[in-house]
């Protein structure tokens, strides 16, 4: 059973369409939710976390409707995008209180809170009011309250926002580790190159619809409208370029003798790689490096989202 299932889910805010007939299934590991502002990411997160009801369709988390459902909430941890803490409360008190809502006694809540705050490196400031925390500390506190009860599904809405580079790195490592433990993690972010460090499984959204979901490379392969770009480093770019001209499936070639590079576009990347290998052997052409500048998340995002 998937952790999260959405079946033809739509959600309106008055006349504004937040989500449009979304079908989605999420299992264990880290899944990244990507899309520009207004794509519907936060709406989807609120539906999955049980804060909103769908206008139509079904949302199932661990097989149940998550809206106002304590039994689903017991297995859920949410790191919301908004910053919100009660005034004049210490970090530990806040985590303790939320743990007590999970049914833990006061002693166990206290111990769990201390342990979790140590895990997110807030142990030295646990007794200080949250209002004195820096932005990064608050983000870590949000994470602490979400994981203190060891949820099976962790949802993070823009967890990297406001973090410095070190903090972002730590958060990414932490998210990956949580996913590697077999838990389900759904993370929404705008920072593409950092999402790539977290996972290759993405759900790409725009204007309330899911444009693509799955592995980044698989998605890239399916985008026929944009041929793949391949960049080759070779000491003989002119000769290589001349040889490649005869290849079927090549849309364009450019080369630079100064940079010792050949760059081409092809709609059949797999076939091209095979032919290149044969060419290099038969014609004794040296290729130092081969890269694909657009076989990445940014390219997928750009090709699918931008008009």
């Amino acid at each position, binding site marked *: 059973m998937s952790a999260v299932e959405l079946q033809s889910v739509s959600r309106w805010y008055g006349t504004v369409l937040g989500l449009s007939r979304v079908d989605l299934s999420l299992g264990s590991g880290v899944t990244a939710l990507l899309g520009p502002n207004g794509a519907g990411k936060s709406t989807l997160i609120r539906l999955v976390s049980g804060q909103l009801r769908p206008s139509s369709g079904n949302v199932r988390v661990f097989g149940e409707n998550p809206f106002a459902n304590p039994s689903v909430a017991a297995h859920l941890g949410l790191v*919301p995008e908004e910053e919100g803490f009660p005034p004049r409360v210490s970090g530990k008190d806040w985590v303790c209180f939320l743990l007590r809502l999970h049914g833990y006694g006061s002693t166990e809540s206290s111990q769990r809170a201390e342990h979790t705050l140590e895990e997110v490196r807030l142990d030295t400031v646990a007794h200080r009011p949250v209002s004195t925390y820096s932005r990064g500390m608050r983000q870590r506190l949000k994470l602490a309250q979400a994981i203190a009860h060891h949820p099976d599904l962790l949802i993070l809405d823009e967890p990297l926002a406001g973090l410095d580079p070190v903090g972002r790195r730590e958060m990414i490592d932490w998210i990956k580790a949580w996913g590697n433990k077999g838990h389900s993690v759904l993370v929404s972010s705008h920072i593409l190159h950092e999402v790539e460090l977290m996972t290759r499984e993405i759900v790409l959204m725009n204007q309330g619809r899911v444009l693509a979901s799955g592995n980044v490379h698989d998605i890239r392969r399916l985008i026929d409208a944009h041929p793949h770009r391949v960049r080759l480093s070779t000491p003989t770019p002119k000769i290589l370029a001349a040889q490649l001209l005869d290849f079927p499936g090549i849309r364009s070639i450019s080369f630079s003798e100064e940079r010792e590079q050949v760059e081409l576009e092809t709609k059949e990347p797999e076939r091209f790689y095979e032919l290149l290998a044969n060419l290099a052997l038969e014609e004794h052409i040296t290729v130092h490096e081969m890269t694909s500048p657009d076989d990445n998340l940014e390219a997928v995002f750009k090709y699918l989202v931008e008009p």
Partner: protein
Amino acid sequence: MSRFWNSRAAVVAQWTFEKLLWSPRTMVMASVTLFPVALAVIFRIAAAVGLQVSFTGFGFFSVVTATVSFPFVAPMLALFYSSGIVVDEAENGTLPYLVTRPITRVSLLAGKMAGSLALQIAIFLPSLVLCFYVAVAPSGFQEVGSRFPTLALDAGVAILGIAAYSGIFAFLGTALRRPVLVGLIFVFGWQAAATYIPGFVRKLTVAHYLQSLLPHESLQGALSGLWGERPSALLAVSVLLTISLMTHALAILAFSRKEFAGRVSS
């Protein structure tokens, strides 16, 4: 009993009570509830310096209770705290944390309402008792002793009244975006206007039943002029309890169905 106190609703109630108790806004409200005590002090000073005063100590306490404590202080307390039960969490941005916990919406709101109500009573009753002692004690211990049952009844009426107002404002706070305005119109508009409208209309106010329960015989003539004939104590208590229970239940119902779209869209 232990199971109740360890229940999640009790956890929420305790958290709500503790966090509100030591907040700056409670300091402000506590000073408001001291209005009647301040008046009692002024009364005592006036009597002590030989100024002509038209009341006995207990008479003064009766008037203050009937004209300041119950019609103004009690509803303002309830409006201040109960209307913000959900709104404050939404404004602080803490609502997503609460509604995504394994606690039913009923328990969550019941806990918050219980904590808030307990705090309102904890703020109001000491003011009432203090006002009584400041006003009546100089008349002698015998006077205090003989009037003490009245104070106890006043305290009971206060709890009923605060519970009724609290329920109304909790429901308004859950159902409306601007509960303060509607609450003010109800307390100081509708309830005030109802004194001028004869007949059944007066029965559609909380003040009508509260005033009828006040055990201050000296005021009943004046109060009857304003509020019409008193209903029986049993009827008044039943109506106030019903108002309290029904409005709290409506608040819970409204909250159970509410969705929270948050402040940021993406």
